[in-house]
């Protein structure tokens, strides 16, 4: 059942040219970034490793934004298209439905990653960082995207409206991303330092910096960044489980389990 739901969602997301247009837009963003890295006078002063770091941040940031927007509506669209009733009276367990939609959203991240791979390979040409660059963007992006998708699904269960779910999830994403873009001078206070340590987006950017600029390639050397990210994933999972159970308790849908 999970596979059927996943396949249905992925077909809906990638089968028509309109629904897959976002992949082309993501590719244009990566192309524009690469063009800037080549031609912008300020950016060309940076070392190649710092350019890789910048490109990695753009790839993961784009993925977080696009997949979060998608995940915010992947569940609520069932309510708004009036397909929820027929879906929930079918012998489908809520758990299977959530897992299917979660995997469909992760597949979008996979598609985006595949589009980004050529950019990463050519940008890393001449360095020995290509495998680490590809590996860490995959690892950090998957952890971050999975957590944001779970958060978005949980929020969707609470609100059941695309507009509210999307707005709330985007505000959360902005709240995590904007401080991560602050310069280190703005992160000097105690509260800012604590938030920096627990902010998953900060952890993603800092881990990429640690790997690409400081050559700290082993996962052990990046444990202090991976742990907050894993913690955020666990918290998002717990939130999604809580929201789904609350959704069931309210009696709008009865799980077959």
């Amino acid at each position, binding site marked *: 059942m999970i596979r059927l739901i996943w396949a249905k969602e992925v077909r809906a997301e990638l089968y028509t*040219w309109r629904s897959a247009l976002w992949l082309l837009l993501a590719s244009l963003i990566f192309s524009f970034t690469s063009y800037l890295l080549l031609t912008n006078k300020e950016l*060309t*002063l*940076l070392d190649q490793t710092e350019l890789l770091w910048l490109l990695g941040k753009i790839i993961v940031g784009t993925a977080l934004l696009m997949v979060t927007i998608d995940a915010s509506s992947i569940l609520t669209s069932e309510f708004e298209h009036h397909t929820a009733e027929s879906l929930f009276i079918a012998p489908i367990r809520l758990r299977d439905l959530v897992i299917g939609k979660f995997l469909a959203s992760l597949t979008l991240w996979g598609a985006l990653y595949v589009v980004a791979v050529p950019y990463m390979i050519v940008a890393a040409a001449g360095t020995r960082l290509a495998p680490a660059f590809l590996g860490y963007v995959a690892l950090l992006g998957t952890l971050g995207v999975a957590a944001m998708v779970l958060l978005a699904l949980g929020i969707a269960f609470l609100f059941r409206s695309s507009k509210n779910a999307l707005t709330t999830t985007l505000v959360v994403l902005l709240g995590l991303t904007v401080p991560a873009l602050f310069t280190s001078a703005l992160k000097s206070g105690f509260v800012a330092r604590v938030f920096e340590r627990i902010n998953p987006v900060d952890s993603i950017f800092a881990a990429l910096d640690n790997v690409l600029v400081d050559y700290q390639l082993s996962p052990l050397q990046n444990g202090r960044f991976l742990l907050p990210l894993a913690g955020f994933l666990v918290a998002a999972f717990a939130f999604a489980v809580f929201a789904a159970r609350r959704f069931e308790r309210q009696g709008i849908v009865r799980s077959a389990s």
Partner: protein
Amino acid sequence: MTQRLVILWAVLLAASASCVAAASAGAPLVLGIASAQTLNGVAGDYVTVAARIENTSDQAVSDVTTYLSLVNTADKLPVDLEDWSAEKGLYVGVIEPSQALPLDWRIHFVKPGRFALTVVALVAGREMPTVSPVVYFQVEPRNSLDPGHILPVALGMPVVLGLLLLLLNYRRRTRP
């Protein structure tokens, strides 16, 4: 008698004129460049221009300020030093008789081109500044990324994806 008075007047006039000229002329300072007269590098590099200021007189010179002047020799325009040097000027203060002081300036090659740098010393009350010999910069462009690798992907990927989407659309339309 009149002739003697005229001569005396002329001598006094000449003496006072030489005093005024001495006051308004440049200070007895010599600015030299210890580093190479031409510095080559790539945009983004840092170099150090080592200058030396010396008081050649037997009197102390006070209120000495030194600063940099950078000109783009291709554009024939002065360059804003904002990103080129963290220290645009340096207040030296007093230079004792026969004293020589080193002046090191760390320069960041911000953009490619040909540039000319001079170190200028100003002394309060003096009309003429002291200027060092010119140091020339030849800054080559820096290419951290290889355009030969990046451009085919940057231009090709959107085209390939666009064609795939068109093919997808065509297949959907023509399928029974």
